């Protein structure tokens, strides 16, 4: 018996009472633990910043308009992700591949702009993880998030390749939905990081 057939049999016998499919529940549990990691980092950032009277105004050091554009790109990539899922739910494999391409392109553009921003800050502004608490918190928070985006791009590329080979259809598309949950989570976290680190 193949692994997929075995898993299907297990799912039929042991129905998940919370949400269809065990994979989705496992992804939610992973996202909860990951959210706590981000909350910990944001809380540490808040504590350090709140009690430091010499904390610089973020807009004086960081390029807020460029990052706002980056935020917009990430939000757009979330829309392309839900459109990809909607396409495969209709059985539209071509639509799945095209929308996933858009999502991967959005994520890659985000990473490119972040790399440009980091290079500018390190080379021209002299900001580093060791230069100040501002630098340390900035690079740790945006770097940790950037690693998530990079992982997401790789994850979605694998999903897209399998989708292009006909691995999903209107009935079997759970892996696309689960990958989508991860990608939207990355978007959600960036919305908070952008506000707390760049705007406040």
């Amino acid at each position, binding site marked *: 018996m193949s692994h997929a057939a075995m898993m299907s049999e297990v799912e039929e016998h042991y129905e998940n009472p919370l949400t269809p499919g065990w994979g989705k529940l496992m992804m939610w549990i992973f996202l909860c633990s990951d959210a706590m990691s981000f*909350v910990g980092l944001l809380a540490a950032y808040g504590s350090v910043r709140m009690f*430091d009277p010499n904390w610089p105004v973020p807009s004086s050091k960081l390029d807020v308009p460029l990052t706002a554009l980056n935020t917009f790109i990430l*939000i757009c990539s979330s829309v392309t992700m839900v459109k990809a899922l909607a396409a495969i739910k209709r059985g539209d494999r071509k639509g799945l591949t095209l929308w996933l391409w858009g999502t991967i392109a959005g994520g890659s553009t985000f990473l490119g702009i972040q790399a440009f921003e980091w290079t500018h800050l390190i080379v021209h502004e002299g900001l580093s993880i060791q230069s100040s608490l501002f630098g340390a918190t900035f690079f740790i928070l945006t770097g940790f998030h950037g690693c998530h985006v990079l992982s997401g791009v790789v994850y979605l590329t694998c999903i897209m390749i399998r989708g292009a080979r006909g691995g999903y259809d209107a009935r079997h598309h759970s892996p696309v939905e689960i990958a989508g949950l991860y990608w939207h989570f990355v978007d*959600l976290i960036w919305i908070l990081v952008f506000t707390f680190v760049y705007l406040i």
Partner: protein
Amino acid sequence: MSQDVKEHAEPNYWGVWLALLILTILELGVTKLPVPKFIEVFALCALALTKAALVAAYFMHLKFEKGALMLIVLSPLLLSAILYIGLVPDAITHIRWLPN
């Protein structure tokens, strides 16, 4: 096994996208307003949490999931808040000793 818990029509994703775009522009606008800092911070936090809630509810389909799953998702955030409030006094004590 991949159908949604509650049968529902496809949400208006472009509408959610537009709302997120408008809220982001509003955030940028708030930073330019001549208002006291605490009002600015409050407004920015409210806008950011609204955007995060929109993403979770519509893009992550949390709005269409069972209440029990929502409890599982929201409980770690509540626990994190309790943990943070519990650690703040300790953080204040130590940060006072940090060099400039």
